[in-house]
């Protein structure tokens, strides 16, 4: 009996490996598929391989950072500075290259600057005990200011040796940037669920006190989480700037909100402890598909913005519902609530 139990647990463990994140992801995947089918009825180009690559390519930058944001949200923090850090990394790489450095060194310095920004944020959050919302709100301005100081507001040429990162295609047309993205998503998912670091991030976000009591290096893990998102913002900056060959000071303006939206649509919770990299990937894809669909259907770009807002809110409500937090919306309870409100 113990053997069969063991087997059952073996299987259920594997099933379980998915179950944590399962429902939000399947739900999301379903939404994307339905949306895709609808769009392809109206415009048969949608399901063309080329277009799908294209959709993926447009979500790469937001998606890469969303991987990091998911970690940050799971750790019960938030990072608003990602758009600016992206730009800072990109223009740093561009200007290091411009001053004569090897292209790869330039790229590495760019990514390094992203990591450093993350380290700075993490350190202030941990030592200054300031909420990461504020620290990264400040960093959003600081990094953008630095970016503009470096460039004087003008685009920096990126090394053509690196242009394959943003523009190259391999294996019969798959964009290199998409491959980088997918690899990072995979690594991110493994990092989150299969490494000591990932499990520690989950622990500090879920229950900081318990993590501390359990001997987890809470402060250090938190700092590393910000280093991670900073690094990913740096990578995104390189990808972004090599797509066009120039690093612009205004790159990534306002991306923080898109990135957070992708992570939250993917199931990351602002109250920490929960989130999924695959979910964030799908969240980014949903945003991409929506944008693409609006172009393909020649709908007003304004409707697009509106519907993205709706999707964000609906995703959050859906998340509350599947966690059973909306029982109070049963008509009877509601009536009570309303009468009590006046009380």
């Amino acid at each position, binding site marked *: 009996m113990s053997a069969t139990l063991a087997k059952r647990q073996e299987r259920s463990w594997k099933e379980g490996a998915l179950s944590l994140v399962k429902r939000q992801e399947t739900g999301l995947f379903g939404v994307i598929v339905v949306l895709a089918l609808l769009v392809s009825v109206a415009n048969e180009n949608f399901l063309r391989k080329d277009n799908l690559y294209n959709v993926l390519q447009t979500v790469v930058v937001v998606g890469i950072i969303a991987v990091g944001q998911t970690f940050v949200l799971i750790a019960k923090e938030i990072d608003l500075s990602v758009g600016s850090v992206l730009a800072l990394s990109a223009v740093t790489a561009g200007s290091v290259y411009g001053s004569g450095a090897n292209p790869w060194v330039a790229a590495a310095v760019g990514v390094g600057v992203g990591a450093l920004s993350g380290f700075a944020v993490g350190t202030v959050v941990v030592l200054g005990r300031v909420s990461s919302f504020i620290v990264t709100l400040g960093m959003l301005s600081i990094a953008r200011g630095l970016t503009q100081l470096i460039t004087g507001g003008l685009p920096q040429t990126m090394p053509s040796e690196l242009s394959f990162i943003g523009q190259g295609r391999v294996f019969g047309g798959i964009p290199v940037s998409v491959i980088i993205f997918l690899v990072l998503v995979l690594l991110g998912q493994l990092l989150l669920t299969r490494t000591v*670091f990932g499990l520690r991030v989950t622990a500090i976000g879920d*229950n900081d006190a318990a993590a501390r*009591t359990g001997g987890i290096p809470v402060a250090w893990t938190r700092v590393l989480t910000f280093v991670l998102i900073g690094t990913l913002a740096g990578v995104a900056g390189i990808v972004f700037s090599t797509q066009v060959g120039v690093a612009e000071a205004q790159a990534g303006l306002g991306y923080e909100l898109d990135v957070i939206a992708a992570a939250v649509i993917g199931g990351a919770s602002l109250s920490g402890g929960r989130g999924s990299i695959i979910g964030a990937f799908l969240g980014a894809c949903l945003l991409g598909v929506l944008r693409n669909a609006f172009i393909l259907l020649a709908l007003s770009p304004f409707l697009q913005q509106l519907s993205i807002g709706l999707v964000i809110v609906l995703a959050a409500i859906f998340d509350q519902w599947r966690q059973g937090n909306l029982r109070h919306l049963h008509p009877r309870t509601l009536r009570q609530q309303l009468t009590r409100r006046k009380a």
Partner: protein
Amino acid sequence: MEPTPLVDDVRSAALATAGLTKSFGAVRALRDVSLVFPAGQVTGLLGENGAGKSTLIRLCSGQMQPDAGRLTLDGREVSFANPLEAIAAGVVVVNQEPLLISELTIADNLFLYDLGERPGFALARRGANVHRARELLARLGMTGYLPDPSTLCRDLSAASRQMVDIVRALSRQPRVLFLDEPNSSLTHEESERLFAVMARLRDEGVAVVLVSHRLAEVYSIVDNVVVLRDGTFVAAGRPDEIDQKRAVALMAGEKKRAVVAEVVADRAGAIEQAEVALELRGLTGEGFTDVSFAVRRGEIVGMSGLVGAGRTEIAEAVIGLRRPTRGGISVAGRPVRISGPGRAQRLGLAYVAEERRTEVFHAQSVGYNLTVRVLSALSRLGWVSPRRTNAKARELTERFGVKAASSEAPITSLSGGNQQKVLLARALAARPKVLILDEPTRGVDVGTKAEIYATLRALAHDEGLAVWFISSELEEVVELADRVVVVRGGRVTLDALNNAGPQPIVAAAMGATEGST
């Protein structure tokens, strides 16, 4: 200088309960309790921690709904959907934890109900409230007990916060007033002033119900005492019928005493021989002073004391969550400095904190909760092996009999007792030499309790683990411990073999003057 009445419109009333019952999952917090709290009298509600006193109060005051049973106020059946309804009927509570708005002044908090009752656009009468508050304090004879009512509650000491809650309750014209450990953070002098107010309320016909673990003080004012044990009504009577000694006996219960004495006597010799696994020497810090005791291999030390005695602080200092200011700690005979929980873990100490809420990773699976403390052992170069994690989780669930659908089931799908087993299993996953448990069976049902006891005994007596557990349940200490350490006011007041039954423990914990009536 005759004080005006505290209660303007005295319509004295008695509150009676009939068959009140309340369960939290498997825990039956209250069973079929029928009582009367008479008007114009102070009733002392006595019972060990977890006996059900607070639950009874919550059921009487609309903070919770009973599973069964009825309430009558002045002979009329009543039911309160929420605290406001109860207050409107004159049933007012001073809670164990004062519910205050820190960023508002004392006066604002005293008249907080105004904010709910008056229209939102109305002026808040903050100045007038300060005057009203001063008047109120003067009327209660409590001016000087509190800083000026214009002080922000954020700046108040714990005692003053408690006092604000008390004054607020008094301002609600209570007909039935429950005080749930109102003086736990008050000085002796402050308690006496409070008791004087209670006496006046009684004289004006209010039914006053007092919960306190300071028996000597309780007996200085009560007209009646009621004793609860394990959620059931045990006895009621005048103080001369149930004196302090008898009350302690009733609260503690008498069973098992003989059995325990034998078991301990049996093992006493063996334990005396065993090497010391953990020793505290004169440990002093915030909340505790000069604490010395030792835990030997194979020994179960039960630490008893009242809530707030400082036991948690001692354990946290040992585990590295707090910094002791003086004194030393030795592990396996070697003096050590414990800089944090990680260090403690490597020294072979494992700790389970007192509140499940603060220990469980709520959004995670059973398997995660079981293995989170031994990630390093299950990993190579930072990569955790799912196979080994899996095996470890399975081993732990089987060894500790955790009833879960699978190790991937969410931890929240488990019953409280099973969650507690998970915490115990998690602590033992790293194969510690010393296990420190704070309230290991709080909220755990009787069956599971027995299982946990059996497991702990096996671990200690058969495998030589040193166990130090903190418990506010006297029965638990009496049943499980080989040695008892009692803490009162941050100091060790008893350190002895557990062979004399509950009375000395209670006496040491409460500082009750033995034999006094």
